[in-house]
């Protein structure tokens, strides 16, 4: 990257900067003329007598002449403002474009960092650098050249004017500038240094906060909160000190400027006064000089401000770019190069005396030499510190060796572009990171190397895309379209989304993930508009379930939804809506505040009953939960009222005793009314909902549906026995009812019943497909680590790699599952290369060839049978477990 912000600006925006400069200079004549015109209007039009005047070959009387000049003045004002407006817009645009370029450049550098560098930098520092730290640079870029040119020019003009009036006075006017010019940069230098320290201190604080968040368990477990607070306070103190000193110095500079600026008139009065008295200078000239000097101050101030801003910008730029230039960055061409068509890896992987040393001379890999065929299956075993994981990463070209050579089919691994290493090889590590998105997105992630099928744009969106593309290119960003079709079906041996899905399903079977996916599918939702045939078949599953529920043995397990019946296993809210809320309008927490719901309740005369019920529930909650600690888990599990709200409700009940339910304010009523909506009669067994109440809630249900305004219709999806409910999960759609509380093992028995029906109707594939849309959460947080590991294996297998490297990537699974999946994997990779870094030495039994590592060296190599005897390191590792 360019070493300084000015080089960056010149390199990427010289033409635009010149354009801004031209605009600025172009506005000068208008500016000058608009300053001059008022004088002409006063002297020539208002105070003059010699009319008519001739202008452009036309004669003007006084009034028309005045109007003409005023008109010209108006036009000048408009032209001037127009110039200012376009300069501002253009500066802003240029600033944003350069900022975009800078951010893009920084981000792309992260993608090229050597992997080991990530041990030294934390995301908590990198994120603010790219997002907030560079932000002010955008503003600076736009004015970097035009501003000093403009105000510098103005200064020169005014100086010239003063000198023309009187050279001595001119000298007096500028006599202090050299002093300022000498002193201020010196003072500023120290401020710059402090600013640098401040940036670093803030960054350290960011890292500190990040560490606290990640290590919070340790802090609690070791009672070190006070220590952490003290450290944090120390950092804050450091920032405070730096900032305080910066303020002092900045304001001193300001003070000095102000003082010197005020000092100059001293010379004018003394020297100028003397000259006037002596008769060497006219009085008028002195006044003119004084007036000109007043005009001198604002541009000079602007220049000084600019000087400080450019110092800030320079430091920020250097400080940021320094962090993004580690040694040994991956060469850009390795990422951009496209592969040869039908490129495959073949031949042997050969390591010759491969070494890896860390900064501090620690040898992680210490002279490793081997030759593996690309059709071999190899297990690498060793203790934790043997370097086996690092060796796997070296082979996957994720780390570059510091010495020796690694070749594959005779080609140096270091020269292979990522389009070869990332497609023909597959690496699965212990982390198995998942990106936020669906299971499907994550499975197909490894197939998205380049845009293959252009996105389709219609008349409306095509120009938008064209402009976006143009802007991207102007800012030095990639023009590749994120909305294009990136998934490389052919690489997975598929010819489209459907056959790719089939491929993925087969592989999910291989890692025994299908049951989990089935569960995810049942919990997922389906858009019946998109997949009407599946929705139709799920409805027949609903019928089949309800057929089964006629059996008296099973009837008690599920209470079906029935428009004419109150459902004791559903909440009061669900009974009232008789549907699934969509969005926040009818969410159970907002229901009491919904004006429409309140209107319906008033209409059927339920409000006061529900308020009374709310009062009873609140009373019970206070009775039951007041004695518990606020953090008690019962609050989450059982209470209708959160711990911190209990005192509030306590006070509320007090007010009711005093003033009755009628005396409550609107907030209190809302609060109380929200409680009974959560009641489930069969679960809470509170006796409050008797048959009469049920009947009245049914009336409310009918009223709710009958008068629902058009605007609220999208906010609820009604239960309808003959219709698929897009807002509810697959399971809820199949059941069309509630699993009954109070029946032993009801959830398990219902689950088995659903599974039976799903299998009978051949719907399992469809459920699994919906499971593919399951959102995995940020970093895959909604999946267990075991599930993530399985998905990571499938993600890699889908690429059909020539060499697969599995680095302790199944560790979260129990031994039996691990062995089964490993066997499946070995069968799947038959004829292709497989390198397995084994967490347990005994798993090496499954492999044709075993490599044993210790302290960064290969100590044993051979078949399992050869090595499995008394006295070998392998034997030792195996007996250690």
């Amino acid at each position, binding site marked *: 990257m360019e070493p300084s912000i000015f080089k960056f600006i010149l390199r990427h925006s010289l033409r635009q900067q010149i354009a801004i400069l031209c605009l600025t200079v172009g506005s000068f004549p208008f500016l000058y003329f608009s300053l001059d015109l008022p004088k002409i209007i006063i002297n020539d039009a208002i105070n003059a007598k010699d009319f008519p005047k001739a202008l452009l070959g036309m004669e003007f009387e006084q009034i028309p002449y005045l109007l003409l000049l005023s008109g010209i003045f108006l036009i000048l004002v408009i032209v001037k403002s127009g110039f200012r407006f376009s300069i501002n817009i253009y500066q802003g645009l240029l600033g944003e474009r350069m900022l975009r370029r800078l951010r893009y450049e920084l981000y792309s550098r992260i993608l090229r960092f050597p992997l080991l560098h990530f041990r030294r930098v934390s995301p908590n520092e990198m994120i603010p650098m790219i997002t907030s730290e560079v932000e002010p640079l955008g503003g600076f870029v736009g004015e970097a050249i035009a501003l000093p040119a403009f105000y510098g020019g103005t200064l020169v003009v005014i100086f010239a004017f003063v000198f023309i009036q009187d050279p001595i006075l001119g000298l007096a006017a500028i006599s202090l500038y050299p002093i300022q010019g000498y002193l201020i940069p010196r003072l500023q230098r120290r401020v710059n240094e402090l600013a640098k320290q401040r940036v670093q201190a803030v960054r350290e604080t960011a890292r500190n906060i990040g560490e606290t968040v990640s290590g919070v368990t340790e802090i609690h477990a070791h009672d070190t909160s006070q220590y952490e607070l003290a450290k944090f306070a120390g950092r804050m103190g450091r920032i405070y000190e730096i900032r305080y000193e910066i303020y002092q110095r900045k304001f001193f500079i300001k003070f000095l400027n102000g003082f010197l600026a005020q000092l100059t008139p001293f010379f004018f009065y003394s020297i100028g006064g003397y000259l006037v008295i002596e008769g060497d200078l006219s009085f008028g000239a002195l006044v003119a000089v004084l007036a000109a000097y007043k005009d001198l101050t604002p541009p000079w101030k602007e220049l000084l401000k600019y000087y400080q801003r450019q110092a800030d910008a320079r430091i920020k730029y250097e400080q940021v770019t320094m962090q993004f230039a580690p040694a040994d960055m991956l060469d850009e061409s390795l990422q951009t190069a496209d592969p040869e068509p039908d490129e495959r890896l073949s031949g042997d992987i050969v390591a010759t005396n491969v070494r890896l040393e860390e900064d501090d001379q620690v040898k992680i890999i210490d002279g490793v030499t081997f030759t593996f065929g690309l059709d071999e299956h190899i297990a690498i075993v060793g203790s934790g510190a043997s370097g086996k994981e690092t060796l796997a990463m070296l082979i996957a070209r994720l780390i570059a060796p510091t010495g020796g050579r690694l070749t594959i089919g005779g080609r140096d691994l270091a020269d292979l572009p990522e389009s070869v290493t990332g497609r023909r090889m597959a690496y699965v590590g212990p982390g198995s990171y998942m990106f936020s998105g669906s299971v499907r997105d994550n499975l197909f992630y490894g197939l998205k190397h380049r845009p293959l099928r252009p996105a389709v744009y219609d008349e409306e969106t095509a120009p938008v895309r064209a402009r976006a593309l143009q802007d991207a290119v102007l800012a030095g960003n990639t023009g590749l379209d994120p909305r294009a079709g990136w998934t490389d079906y052919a690489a997975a041996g598929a010819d489209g989304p459907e056959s790719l899905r089939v491929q993925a399903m087969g592989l999910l079977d291989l890692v025994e993930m299908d049951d989990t996916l089935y569960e995810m599918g049942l919990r997922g939702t389906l858009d019946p508009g998109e997949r009407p045939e599946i929705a139709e078949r799920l409805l027949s599953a609903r019928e089949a379930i309800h057929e089964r529920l006629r059996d008296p043995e099973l009837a008690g397990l599920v209470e079906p939804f029935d428009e004419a019946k109150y459902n004791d296993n559903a909440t009061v809210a669900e009974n009232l809506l008789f549907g699934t809320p969509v969005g926040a309008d009818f969410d159970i927490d907002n229901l009491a505040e919904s004006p429409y719901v309140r209107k319906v309740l008033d209409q059927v005369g339920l409000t006061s009953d529900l308020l009374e019920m709310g009062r009873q529930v609140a009373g*019970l909650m206070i009775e039951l939960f007041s004695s518990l600690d606020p953090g008690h888990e019962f609050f989450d599990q059982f209470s209708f009222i959160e711990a911190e709200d209990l005192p509030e409700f306590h006070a509320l009940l007090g007010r009711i005793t005093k003033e009755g339910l009628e005396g409550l304010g609107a907030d209190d009523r809302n609060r109380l009314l929200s409680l009974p909506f959560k009641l489930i009669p069969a679960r809470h067994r509170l*006796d409050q909902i008797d048959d009469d109440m049920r009947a009245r809630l049914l009336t409310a249900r009918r009223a709710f549906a009958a008068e629902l305004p058009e605007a609220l219709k999208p906010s609820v999806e009604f239960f309808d026995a003959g219709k698929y409910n897009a807002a509810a999960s697959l399971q809820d759609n199949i059941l069309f009812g509630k699993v009954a509380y109070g029946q032993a093992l009801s959830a398990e028995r219902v689950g088995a019943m659903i599974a039976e029906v799903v299998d009978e109707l051949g719907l399992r594939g469809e459920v699994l497909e919906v499971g593919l849309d399951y959102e995995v959460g940020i970093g895959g947080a909604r999946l267990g680590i075991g599930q993530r590991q399985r998905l990571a294996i499938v993600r890699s297998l889908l690429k059909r790699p020539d060499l697969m490297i599995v680095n302790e990537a199944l560790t979260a699974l129990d031994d039996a599952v691990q062995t089964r999946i490993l066997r499946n994997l070995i069968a799947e990779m038959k004829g292709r290369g497989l390198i397995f870094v084994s967490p347990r030495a005994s798993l090496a039994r499954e492999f044709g060839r075993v490599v044993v590592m210790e302290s960064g060296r290969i100590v044993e190599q051979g078949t399992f049978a050869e090595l499995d005897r008394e006295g070998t390191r392998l034997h030792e590792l195996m007996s250690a477990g």
Partner: protein
Amino acid sequence: MSLSEELEALRNIPMFANVEPTQLKLLAFTSQRLTFGAGQDLFRRGDVGDSAYIIISGEADVLVDKEGTEVAVAKAGKNEIVGEIAILCNVPRTATIRAVTELTALKIPKDLFFRLIAEFPDMGVQVMAELARRLHRTTQQLTEALAKLEDR
């Protein structure tokens, strides 16, 4: 059956006889009420124990394994607590409990049970007393059985 009825049932259990009504109410409110059909198992011998059951109505057999067949050694009925041993001392279920009639029970999860004991020492003492009574009974039975053996 409603919460107040369950509360009444709980109060009739000796172990809870002296526990404050509010505490019992909390116990009733926070535990699940389950209905078992005749022949259904509350739990099986050898299972990991995660909850105790208080029988509110119905009757159950206590079955143990004797040379491969299940033998009923006792009956459990209304107001009795079963399954507390497995959760108190962390051992697998020592017997199978099978409903002989339709049976309703309150299922008290292990952590809830412990929490209540920890938070309401009164109840802990009651539990101890009940266990001591049972131990006393078992010791007596053992003494009698030994005496019978010696007599022979």
